[in-house]
């Protein structure tokens, strides 16, 4: 089947999975008794409501109806963008959108680094097999998979933030942050993208660019180190396998130089499974973000979810879970399509 049919088929298969994701969250939410669940729909101060009022709300929001009716109305609400209210932070969707840019900023710097460093290291480790480079990269990648990201983050934080005071928590230093509010008020700063590094350049303020970048360094290092490890191992073994194939010997027998054989012939084949893994790693970064943002008090959606979990704030955590699942599923889809595009064996069937 051609590429187009393949894409369409994958898109169609997406629907049951998305539906399943939503159903699962709904099923989990049903575990929560209606008295607590109704609070999701209520904004404002909900802690002081007495049982009668709550009963009334339960009836009003149809939480005493049969399950499938509840599901239909819940899904309906979801599709209209109503993700409920959190006791602690207010409207869920609003918070999600408002806090997303901080997270996106981290991802924009981490993802390319993870992919580039991971692939380069893995491929070279395979080419230089059993030489010092290979051993060094294997040690680092084993370490990367064993090191808890929060431990690594805390260690970096203790050294670079608390002791050496090179940078700080959050997106900007306190001083710069307060200045920023002032700048916004007088109209000297426009939030074009809500990504501070980008906006700083667009507003012509290098000082903010540098400050924001300094605050991004540590979270990015943590995410990159931990996630590169898996990629390096897979890239290395994939490349080793490609190098042992007959077409590599055949290419050499044609008279191609060692460099051409390795980089034009072997690597192309080795990268195919690696590309898919890269996509999955990036799609799965949501977990790492929760921990990293917490360690560095970065005001993104990861920390929002972590705080909410600590307070047992159900709507926020459920929303974050759904969001993560959707991101992961979509990245799977993109990766599958990319794979089909790169590998002619799949593209041409």
């Amino acid at each position, binding site marked *: 089947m051609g590429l187009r049919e393949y894409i369409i088929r994958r898109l169609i298969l997406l629907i*049951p*999975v998305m539906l*399943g*994701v939503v*159903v*699962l*969250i709904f099923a*989990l*939410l049903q*575990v*929560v*008794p209606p008295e*607590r669940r109704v609070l999701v729909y209520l904004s404002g101060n909900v802690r002081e409501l007495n049982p009668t009022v709550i009963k009334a709300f339960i009836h009003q929001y149809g939480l005493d109806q049969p399950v499938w009716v509840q599901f239909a109305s819940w899904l309906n609400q979801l599709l209209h963008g109503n993700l409920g209210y959190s006791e602690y932070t207010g409207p869920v969707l609003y918070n999600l959108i408002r806090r997303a840019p901080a997270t996106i900023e981290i991802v924009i710097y981490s993802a390319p680094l993870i992919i580039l460093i991971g692939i380069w290291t893995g491929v070279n480790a395979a080419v230089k097999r059993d030489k010092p480079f290979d051993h060094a990269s294997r040690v680092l990648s*084993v*370490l990367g*998979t*064993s*090191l*808890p*990201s*929060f*431990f690594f983050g*805390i*260690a970096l*934080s*203790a*050294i670079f*933030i*608390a*002791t050496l005071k090179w940078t700080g928590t959050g997106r900007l230093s306190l001083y710069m942050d307060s200045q920023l509010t002032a700048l916004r008020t007088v109209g000297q700063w426009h939030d074009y993208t809500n990504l501070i590094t980008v906006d700083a350049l667009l507003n012509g303020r290098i000082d903010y660019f540098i400050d924001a970048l300094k605050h991004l360094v540590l979270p990015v290092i943590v995410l990159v180190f931990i996630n590169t490890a898996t990629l390096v191992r897979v890239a290395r073994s994939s490349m080793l396998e490609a190098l042992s194939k007959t077409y590599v010997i055949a290419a050499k027998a044609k008279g191609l130089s060692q460099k051409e054989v390795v980089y034009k012939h072997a690597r192309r084949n080795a990268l195919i499974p690696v590309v898919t893994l890269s996509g999955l790693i990036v799609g*799965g970064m*949501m*977990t790492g973000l*929760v*921990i990293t943002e*917490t*360690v560095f008090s970065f005001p993104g959606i990861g920390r929002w*979810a*972590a705080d*909410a*979990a*600590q307070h*047992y*704030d*159900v709507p926020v*955590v*459920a929303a*974050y*879970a759904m969001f*993560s*699942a959707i991101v*992961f*599923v979509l990245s799977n889809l993109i990766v599958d399509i990319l794979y089909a595009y790169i590998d002619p064996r799949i593209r041409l069937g």
Partner: protein
Amino acid sequence: MKKMKVPERLEPTIKEIKFILRRIKDSPLSLAGIALVSAFIIIAVFAPVLAPPKPGFNPYLIPSDPSLGFRIEPSPPSPNHIFGTTTAQRDIYYACIWGARWAFQIALEVIVATVTVGIVLGLVAGYYGGFIDELIMRFTDIMLAFPGLILAMTLVTILSQVNWQTIDAVLLSIILIGWPGYTRLIRSEVLRIKNEDYIEAARACGASDLRIMLRHILPNAVYSIIIVASLDFGSIVLTTAAMSFLGLGAPLGWSDWGRLIYDGMSFVSGGLRWWWSWVYPGVFIVLFVLGWSLLGDALRDVLDPLYRRK
């Protein structure tokens, strides 16, 4: 070397074992893995000896040292407290030792549960195929669409609303996020083995489905399960630690490595001043996970027919 009289039937097995031992001996990383894991097993088993608990109390609760008051600020390592203390003067050495036992307890409980469910569902799905296979696979797909930790967080949060203890909730959550992986693994092994000729031969001999599954398919899938399970030891402990770090795991005063780091995080603002409160538990986690990773790799080198004799 004098040749021992060995019954002929056992000769190939003896040769196998000798080969395995030689392979392990030649790889320093494998030896390191075995050493680490053995060390942790010894620590866990001998915890009551290495760090005697207070009589009458749950041994997993870290004792505080009243002689130092109940100060929040951790005390540095001293002869009485070789790793120092953390908030409320709880002894870190004690916590790390019992933390090892706790880690094993959690990991074993989770692995036993997830592997069992995985075997049952994987065998059924792989062997019978068809509708039931589709059903099981769709369900695992949906569960796997959620990143593990996040789903666990959601489960713990929700279970708190029905008044579950966090420890129990964490245990259940990790089991629930773990079984789909094993189901998939075992199913793919079953699919691979199902097509081998000896299965058809067994069927031709009149073996029942259950017998085929248990006597023929499962033993051949065991190697993969062992390799994945040993890597899982490490990742389960990492996940529990992460949950504790987020405040969702063990409660205050419990000897859980992650919890210790959570408690220690309040002191990070002091830089390296109270380093012992989070460095020691962290190192324990790293070594534990490292040991199991290396062991898993070593097992893979030795057991996986594809990798051997390269």
